[in-house]
C-alpha cells in the first residue's frame, strides 16, 4: 500500500495554484465588507494578514473535519453484492461419496484436525466417517447455528447422519461464496465487524505497522523522524513513518501522490480522525479498507475478503501463520504475492511472526511452530475455480430485471444462487477434456473447437452449472447464453410431441420415410434428405425419432402442421418466437444452449414449463430478505403426451443415435436425450435429461465453420461423461393413468413379446390399437446391420 505512494512529487505546484484560486474565490464572496476591510488592512498590514490566514486555516480545518466525519459516519464503502452457491444438503440416503464431501469441505476451507472436531470449520475423516462442525450462517430462510455432524458413508451414499448422539433428518453446510458484482473500479470487500477481528490480527498490525498506535494522537513524530533519518541514510525513501491512522486517511481521501502538502493534509486529517473516533473504530476501518490482492480487474480489499480469497475461510478461523501472511502483504500485495513470489512472501511472513514473538503477541515456541508451516493457500486448481464468470453472467441477467446496477454494486446485497460447485467443476473439466480429445482424434489444431454446457435441475428449473467456453475461469464470450446456433435435430421431440398431442399418432404409428419436395414462398424448392442419404420406407415414429430420420420427420411435421410445431416449441419455452417455416422441422432455428435447456426442462418436468432461475433469493446487507424467486410452473402440454414422447427419447439412448452414451453411463440408468447436428456439420448438440438433471452440450467453432462432428460424435461423449461424473437419478416411471406400457416391434409397431430382440417398451394410450405381430425377428437383419452403421 505504501509502496505506490512514494512515486510522484510533481503535483505540488499545481496544488498551490488551485488553493490560491480557492482563496480568491472565497474573498470575492464577501464583497459587502470588502471596502472597510481593505482600508483596515492598509492601516494594519501585519495583523490583518495574520487574522486572514487564521480565518482561512480555520475554514480549511472545518472543511477537512467535515470531510473526515462525513466519510467516517456515513456509509464508508460501496459494497458489491456477494454471490453464493447452493448450500450442500446432507441427509441419510443422499448419493454423496466421502471424497465428494471431503472436496466440498476443502472448497469451503475447512481445516482437518487430528482429534474430535470442536470448532466451526473443522473436520476429521476416518474409515467411512466424516465428523465436522458447520459454521453458523444466515440463510435466506433463517439463521442456522454451528452444529456438530457425524456423517457415516455407505458406499457412495450417506448411510447415517447424526449430531454425535441423535439422528439428524437434514442439515446443510454454509454455501461457498462464488463471486461479487462489483462496479467498474473493481473494489471488492467483505466487511468484518470489530468482534470478528482476531486479536492476533490487531496485535500484528500494531506490531508491524505502527507500534505506538495506542499511544499516539494520529501522527507519531518520533516514528516520522526515525523514518526520515533512515531514509536519509539509505539515500532515498526506504521506510514509511506513517501511522495506521495516516495510512487509513491516505487510502480514504487521497491519491497515491506523496508531496509535502499532501503529507500535511494527511497528518491533519489523521489528527482530526483520532479526535473524533476511538482506536478500536479506526483499527476496524483499517482492517476493512486495506488492499490485499488482485484478480483480473477485481481488487481484493480488507482482511475479511482477503481471508476468503487466499484461504477460503472466514477471518476468525485463520491460523496465526495465515494472519501473519496477510499482514506481511499489506506492504505490497503485488510484491509479496504468495503465489507468484512465494519465497519472498514467506520470508516476510516469517519476519512478521518473529516480530509478533518479540512483542509478546505470540510465544516464541508458537512462532517457531507457525514458521514451520507452509504458505497453505487455498488450492484453486484442485478444487475448481472459485470464480465462475459464466455463471455470474446469468445471475446478473436475472437480477437486472429487478435491481439497478448501482444497488448491486454498492448496497452489500447477498445473492443466493443454485450453482452446484460439484456439477460446475465436472462440467468444466469434462468439456475441456472432451474438446481436447476431439481435436487430438481428428487432427485439429488445439483450441480450434469451442463448446458450452448448461446443467439445470429437472424439476425446479434451477440452473446448476453454466460453462461458457473451454477456459472456464476466464470471462469472455459466453456461448452457453449468447451463442444462438441452429439446433438441428434437437427440434424433433417438438415435432413428435405435436403429433402425439394431436391424438392422431402414437409412437407405434408408422410414417413414410421417403423424399419430399416442398415449394418455398421465394420460388425455390426445399428437398431435405436423410443424414445417411438413404430412405427407409414405412417406419415407426419411435424408430424415426430414435434414428433421427429427417424425411420421416418432415412428412410427420407437415401432416401435423408446421404452425402447430412452432407454437408448441414456444409453449415449451423457446424464446424468441419461432417462425413456422418447413425448415423448422429439421431445426433451422437458432437457440442458445440455455434456451434449449429451458425447452428440454419442460419435457423433463412432465409438460410443466418452469422459467430457468439462477437466483433463489436476495438479502440486503442486514440479512432482510428482499426478493425470493420462487418456483413457478405452468402446465403447457398434457403430461400423458410428454410421457409418451419420453419413451421415444429413452429409445434414442437405447437403440438410436444416443446409444454411444452407454459407454459411460450405468446400463440400468434410464435417461432421455436427443442428438442435434446442423447443416454441414457446423454445430454438434446433445440435449437430454434424467430424473434429476437436464443437460445441454454444444460443440462447434466460433467462426461457425464446419467441424466434421455430429451430435453423437461431438457432444454426446461430453454429455455422458458429465452425467456419469455428477451422478444422477434415473427417470421416474410414467404415471399418467390414461397410459399403459406395451411392448411393440421397433420396426413395424406391431405388439410383440418383450423377449423379442426388436421389442421396445412404449407408453401408449390405453385405447391404442396395435396390430398383433407376435413373430419375433421379422425382417430385422437389415435393420440391425443398418443401425450399427448409424453414426448420426
Amino acid at each position, binding site marked *: 500500500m505504501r509502496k505506490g505512494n512514494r512515486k510522484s512529487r510533481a503535483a505540488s505546484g499545481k496544488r498551490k495554484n488551485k488553493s490560491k484560486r480557492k482563496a480568491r474565490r472565497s474573498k470575492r464572496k464577501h464583497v459587502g465588507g470588502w471596502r472597510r476591510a481593505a482600508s483596515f488592512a492598509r492601516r494594519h498590514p501585519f495583523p490583518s494578514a495574520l487574522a486572514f490566514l487564521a480565518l482561512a486555516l480555520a475554514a480549511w480545518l472545518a472543511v477537512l473535519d467535515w470531510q473526515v466525519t462525513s466519510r467516517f459516519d456515513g456509509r464508508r464503502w460501496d459494497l458489491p453484492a456477494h454471490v453464493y452457491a447452493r448450500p450442500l444438503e446432507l441427509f*441419510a440416503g443422499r448419493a454423496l461419496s466421502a471424497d465428494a464431501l471431503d472436496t466440498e469441505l476443502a472448497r469451503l476451507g475447512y481445516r482437518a484436525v487430528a482429534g474430535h472436531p470442536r470448532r466451526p470449520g473443522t473436520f476429521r475423516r476416518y474409515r467411512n466417517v466424516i465428523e465436522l462442525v458447520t459454521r453458523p450462517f444466515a440463510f435466506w*430462510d433463517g439463521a442456522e447455528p454451528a452444529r456438530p455432524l457425524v456423517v457415516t458413508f455407505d458406499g457412495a451414499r450417506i448411510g447415517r447422519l447424526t449430531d454425535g448422539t441423535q439422528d439428524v433428518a437434514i442439515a446443510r453446510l454454509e454455501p461457498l461464496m462464488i463471486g461479487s458484482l462489483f462496479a467498474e473500479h473493481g473494489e471488492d470487500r467483505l466487511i468484518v465487524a470489530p468482534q470478528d477481528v482476531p486479536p492476533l490480527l490487531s496485535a500484528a498490525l500494531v506490531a508491524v505497522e505502527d507500534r505506538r498506535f495506542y499511544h499516539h494522537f494520529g501522527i507519531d513524530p518520533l516514528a516520522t523522524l526515525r523514518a526520515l533519518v533512515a531514509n536519509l541514510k539509505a539515500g532515498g525513501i526506504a521506510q514509511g513513518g506513517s501511522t495506521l491512522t495516516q495510512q487509513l486517511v491516505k487510502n480514504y481521501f487521497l491519491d497515491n501522490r506523496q508531496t509535502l502538502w499532501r503529507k500535511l493534509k494527511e497528518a491533519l486529517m489523521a489528527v482530526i480522525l483520532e479526535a473524533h473516533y476511538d482506536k478500536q473504530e479506526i483499527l476496524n476501518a483499517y482492517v476493512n479498507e486495506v488492499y490485499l490482492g488482485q484478480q483480473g480487474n477485481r481488487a481484493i480489499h480488507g482482511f475479511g475478503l482477503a481471508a476468503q480469497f487466499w484461504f477460503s475461510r472466514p477471518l476468525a478461523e485463520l491460523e496465526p501463520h495465515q494472519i501473519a501472511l496477510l499482514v506481511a502483504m499489506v506492504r505490497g500485495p503485488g510484491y509479496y504475492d504468495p503465489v507468484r513470489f512465494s519465497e519472498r512472501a514467506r520470508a516476510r511472513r516469517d519476519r512478521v511472526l518473529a516480530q509478533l514473538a518479540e512483542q509478546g503477541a505470540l510465544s516464541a515456541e508458537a512462532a517457531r511452530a507457525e514458521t514451520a508451516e507452509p504458505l497453505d493457500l487455498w488450492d484453486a486448481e484442485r478444487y475448481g475455480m472459485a470464480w465462475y464468470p459464466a455463471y455470474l453472467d446469468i445471475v446478473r441477467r436475472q437480477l437486472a430485471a429487478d435491481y439497478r446496477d448501482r444497488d448491486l454494486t454498492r448496497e452489500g446485497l447477498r445473492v443466493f444462487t443454485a450453482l452446484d460447485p460439484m456439477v460446475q467443476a465436472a462440467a468444466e473439466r469434462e468439456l475441456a477434456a472432451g474438446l481436447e480429445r476431439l481435436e487430438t482424434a481428428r487432427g485439429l489444431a488445439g483450441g480450434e473447437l469451442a463448446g458450452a454446457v448448461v446443467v439445470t*435441475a429437472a424439476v425446479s428449473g434451477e440452473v446448476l452449472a453454466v460453462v461458457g467456453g473451454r477456459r472456464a475461469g476466464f470471462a469472455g464470450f459466453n456461448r452457453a447464453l449468447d451463442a444462438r446456433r441452429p439446433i438441428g435435430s434437437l427440434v424433433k421431440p417438438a415435432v413428435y410431441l405435436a403429433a402425439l398431442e394431436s391424438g392422431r399418432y402414437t409412437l407405434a404409428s408408422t410414417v413414410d420415410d421417403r423424399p419430399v419436395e416442398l415449394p418455398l414462398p421465394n420460388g425455390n424448392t426445399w428437398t431435405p434428405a436423410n443424414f445417411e442419404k438413404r430412405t427407409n420406407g414405412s417406419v415407426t415414429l419411435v424408430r424415426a425419432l430414435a434414428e433421427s430420420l429427417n424425411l420421416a420427420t418432415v412428412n410427420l411435421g407437415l401432416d401435423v402442421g408446421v404452425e402447430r410445431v412452432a407454437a408448441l416449441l414456444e409453449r415449451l419455452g423457446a424464446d424468441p418466437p419461432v417462425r413456422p417455416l418447413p425448415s423448422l422441422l429439421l431445426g433451422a432455428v437458432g437457440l442458445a444452449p440455455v434456451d434449449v435447456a429451458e425447452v428440454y426442462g419442460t419435457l423433463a418436468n412432465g409438460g410443466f414449463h418452469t422459467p430457468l432461475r439462477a437466483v433463489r433469493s436476495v438479502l440486503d446487507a442486514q440479512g432482510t430478505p428482499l426478493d425470493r424467486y420462487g418456483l413457478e410452473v405452468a402446465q403447457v402440454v398434457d403430461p400423458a403426451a410428454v410421457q409418451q414422447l419420453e419413451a421415444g427419447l429413452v429409445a434414442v439412448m437405447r437403440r438410436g443415435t444416443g446409444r454411444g452414451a452407454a459407454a459411460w453411463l450405468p446400463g440400468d440408468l434410464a435417461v432421455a436425450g436427443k442428438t442435434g447436428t446442423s447443416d454441414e456439420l457446423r454445430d454438434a448438440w446433445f440435449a437430454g435429461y434424467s430424473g434429476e438433471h437436464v443437460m445441454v452440450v454444444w460443440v462447434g467453432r466460433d467462426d461457425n465453420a464446419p467441424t466434421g462432428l455430429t451430435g453423437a460424435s461431438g457432444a454426446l461423449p461430453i454429455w455422458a461423461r458429465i452425467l456419469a461424473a455428477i451422478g444422477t437419478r434415473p427417470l421416474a416411471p410414467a404415471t399418467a393413468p390414461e397410459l399403459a406400457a406395451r411392448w411393440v416391434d421397433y420396426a413395424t409397431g406391431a405388439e410383440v413379446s418383450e423377449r423379442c430382440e426388436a421389442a421396445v417398451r412404449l407408453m401408449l394410450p390405453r385405447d391404442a390399437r396395435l396390430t398383433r405381430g407376435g413373430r419375433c425377428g421379422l425382417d430385422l437383419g437389415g435393420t440391425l446391420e443398418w443401425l450399427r452403421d448409424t453414426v448420426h
Partner: protein
Amino acid sequence: MAARHRPLTPALALTLLLGACATGVPPGPAGERDEAGRLGESGSPAGRPEADLGAAGSALVTRGVNERRAGDYAQAAATLERALRIEPGSAAVWLELARVRLAQGDYVQAGQLARKAGSLATGQPALAAASQAVLAEALERQGQSP
C-alpha cells in the same frame, strides 16, 4: 413406491392428515381455516394418507406445513422448495406448496402446483383427491377474482 422409503413419521402423518382430510379431524390452530386457507372439501378415504417421502423430505414438509399454519408463507414456500429439491417426484411436496400459494392468494400458481401434484399422485388416492380439491378451490377463486 412408498414401501421403499422409511416409514412415515408420526408428525408428518398428522400434518398431512390435517391438511388433506379436514372431515373428522379436530380443528387446527387459529388461522388454519381462514378464508384463503380453507381446505374443507377434500376427504381422505383411508385413515392415513399415502406419502412418498423419505425422512429428510418428511422433516422439511412438516416444518413447511407448520410455517404455513403460522402464517409465514414466504418461509413455508422456501422450506417446501428445499424439500422439492430433495424429493422432486413427491406429490405430497407439490401439494403442500400448492396449499401455501392458495393461502397466499396466488390462485394461478396454486392451481398449477396442484395439477403437478395430481400428475404425480397416480396410485395414491388421498393425495390425488387432495390435489384435486386444491385445484378445484384455486379454479373457483380464480373465477371469482375480477
